């Protein structure tokens, strides 16, 4: 083979290798990244309420702390540019400890709740689905869902919206839209007030 032919062959091999490396790296990034929303939201695992990760910038003076017992309520700052009119709260869950109950009191503002797993969002609900001003979801694994069905009391009607999660770990996001500047503080408050607690066995 001529030297030029060998060089062309090597280049072709290099290009094929580049394609393989490219595909492998793109597929590996979600497993290797430590700055993704899943990893970041792990820090909120112990909280009983959602944590504000993107606050609506209030035009006025910085809002006074709502209560002194929660000093770690300052919005974290790891998200890329977000919608400036939307307050975003997250709440991580781990279904190993039992089903997780999400309770959101909806107000006059547009509010959406989405459930994210490892492979992206798998469920979303808006405040239009609220029953008497409350959205209640129970996230469970397939096994917990079957157990709940098996032990259910037949006379009692269960109003929970039960969602089977694709994976054990995930996080819940709450987006509250402040349509007017006067609603900004209210939106921030709503985004951090969603409770996500482990559903006790007494239920």
């Amino acid at each position: 083979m001529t030297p030029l032919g060998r060089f062309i062959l090597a280049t072709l091999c290099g290009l094929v290798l580049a394609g393989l490396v490219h595909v492998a790296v793109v597929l590996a990034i979600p497993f290797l990244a430590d700055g993704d929303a899943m990893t970041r939201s792990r820090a909120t695992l112990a909280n009983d309420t959602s944590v504000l990760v993107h606050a609506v910038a209030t035009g006025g003076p910085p809002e006074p702390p709502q209560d002194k017992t929660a000093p770690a309520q300052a919005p974290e700052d790891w998200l890329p540019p977000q919608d400036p009119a939307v307050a975003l709260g997250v709440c991580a869950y781990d279904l190993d400890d039992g089903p997780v109950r999400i309770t959101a009191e909806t107000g006059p503002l547009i509010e959406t709740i989405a459930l994210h797993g490892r492979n992206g969002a798998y469920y979303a609900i808006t405040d239009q689905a609220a029953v008497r001003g409350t959205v209640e979801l129970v996230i469970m694994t397939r096994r917990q869902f079957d157990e709940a069905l098996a032990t259910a009391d037949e006379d009692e009607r269960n109003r929970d919206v039960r969602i089977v999660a694709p994976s054990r770990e995930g996080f819940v996001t709450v987006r509250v839209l402040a349509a007017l500047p006067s609603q900004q503080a209210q939106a921030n408050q709503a985004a951090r007030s969603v409770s996500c607690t482990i559903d006790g066995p007494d239920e």
Partner: protein
Amino acid sequence: MLTENVVRPAPGRSAFLRPRILRRPARLRRAGTVGLVLYALVLGAGLGLASANWATRGRYPFGGVALNAWTAWPRIGSREADPYVRAIHARTGEIPLALGEGLLLTALTDDAGHRLDPSCRYRIAGATPPARAWTLTVERRGQAKALPQAGTAAPPPRTGFTSTEVLRDRDGRFAVALSPTVQPGNWLPMPEGEGSIRLVLRLYDTPVAASTGVLEREGVPSITREDCP
């Protein structure tokens, strides 16, 4: 040895030299093969890593639905998101709008296909997209986040409009002026800094998320360049 070669008769000399001539290319060939293998490895690793880095920098490479100047991204917040979208979200920490929450539309160009120029004046007008609420935001790549300054009285400049606060005409249509200088009506200041301009339209609680055909029928806001200095 060399002098001996010189004094030898012609046939013997050629017989001695032939193996040497044959041996040298063989050694060269082996060194060349090692070099070429190294070259192929370096090329593969370098190109592969660089292209993967380029494709997952922050803007979705494909998977969008083009609607005039806008591109809708219906699948980024679903479980059918492609591996590039997942890699981008993993690198940036982005939390996408889920399928039932809303829809993200972005525009990098105007309706004529020119890239959005920070020094120009644009008019974004049209019908309201079918959604419970929408927000129109302008972003600049590489823009430093506005830090809340304690001493200054001036509020941070507006970066977007919501469907509630935008001023409309009698027919319910709106027109937003995106410009570096002050404009009457709905003025959206051009963000300062370096980098390309991107318009982001987010539709919240919208039936469009299920199929972008609704948007094609109802239309998306038009982006027209008014004048450039």
